[in-house]
């Protein structure tokens, strides 16, 4: 049994490395061949994990080979559009201003019902609302609505707002994020002051604390509601 535990751990770590090397795409974002590759990897990993007479190298070598081949395939598809098109295919317009492109539907082997489902997922419930619908290479459908049906944005109303900025996490589950302190230009003392002002006993009690460029601090104690604090903050000094 110990053999199985050790083998499972080795394969787990290897699969972890393999997926890290393959990137962070989610299933919905994968190209068809990437999805197949993921399934093959899963299958390859299970054989040497459970079958003790099979050397672990029988799982390791094919896994590593797949990663190497995948890397080169991706590398060349990035370098050459033609290779990329051959491997991933190309986006196909399935709806245009004239309506549904039946030829494309047939080419993609999708039905009108599938098309309805796809445009509903994009937030449109009538074909009339759609100007263009494009089937991407990973199988998702992106929709460009007709101007009359597109949502109003601030620009349309001439509303000028300050650009939103990304808050920096200072504390996460009681741990001080030292790397983020460097990014924000704050010192440990500043974080302690924030915690004190929020009337939280110690750093360990803080669930999360973030600060944005305008000095807005979001801080929440574990099992308590969050608080918003406002500071004068110029990217380094906090007052």
């Amino acid at each position: 049994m110990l053999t199985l535990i050790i083998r499972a751990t080795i394969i787990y770590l290897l699969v972890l490395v393999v997926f890290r090397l393959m990137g962070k795409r989610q299933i919905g974002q994968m190209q068809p061949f990437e999805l197949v590759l993921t399934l093959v990897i899963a299958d390859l990993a299970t054989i040497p994990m459970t079958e003790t007479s099979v050397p672990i190298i029988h799982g390791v070598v094919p896994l590593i080979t797949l990663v190497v081949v995948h890397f080169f395939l991706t590398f060349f598809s990035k370098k050459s559009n033609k290779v990329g098109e051959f491997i991933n295919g190309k986006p196909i317009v399935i709806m245009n201003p004239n309506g549904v492109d039946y030829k494309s539907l047939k080419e993609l082997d999708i039905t009108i019902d599938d098309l309805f489902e796809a445009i509903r997922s994009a937030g449109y419930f009538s074909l009339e609302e759609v100007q263009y619908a494009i089937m991407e290479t990973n199988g998702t459908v992106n929709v460009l609505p007709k101007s009359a049906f597109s949502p109003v944005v601030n620009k349309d109303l001439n509303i000028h707002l300050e650009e939103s900025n990304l808050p920096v996490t200072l504390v996460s589950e009681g741990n001080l994020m030292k790397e983020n302190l460097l990014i924000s230009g704050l010192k440990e003392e500043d974080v302690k002051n924030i915690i004190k002002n929020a009337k939280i006993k110690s750093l360990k009690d803080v669930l999360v604390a973030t600060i944005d460029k305008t000095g807005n601090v979001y801080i929440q104690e574990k099992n308590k509601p969050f608080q918003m604090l406002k500071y004068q903050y110029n990217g380094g000094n906090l007052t």
Partner: protein
Amino acid sequence: MNKKFIYVIIILVILIGACVWEQVMVNNYLSNIKEKVYNLTEFVKDKTDINSKQMYDLVVDLDDTWERYEEKLCFLVNHKEIADLGVELTKMKIYVVENNVTEFKASLAQVLYYAEGYEHVMGITLQNLL
């Protein structure tokens, strides 16, 4: 050149290196076994009595050599696939004690057959590739 590219190239070099090392090792091991079997075959060719210490030691030597090689080969191939040769060698020791020349010679041929078979299975041949 990005980091990932360098990692993949390193992995590729290691893979190629491991493949070459594997082939050299397998060929060496199996050639040694085959050579020992040929010598043994030659030695018993005209013999009618094999119940001797010398013969027993030769078989034990062959068995020990195989056991040493098998330990390493098990890193590369399914243990079950190469277990038969060891079984045959165990039988050969008994045949020497029992002075069963016919069975002993048959087992020698069997060991040779297995060694050649393993060479074929582990080698890079068109049949294995396709």
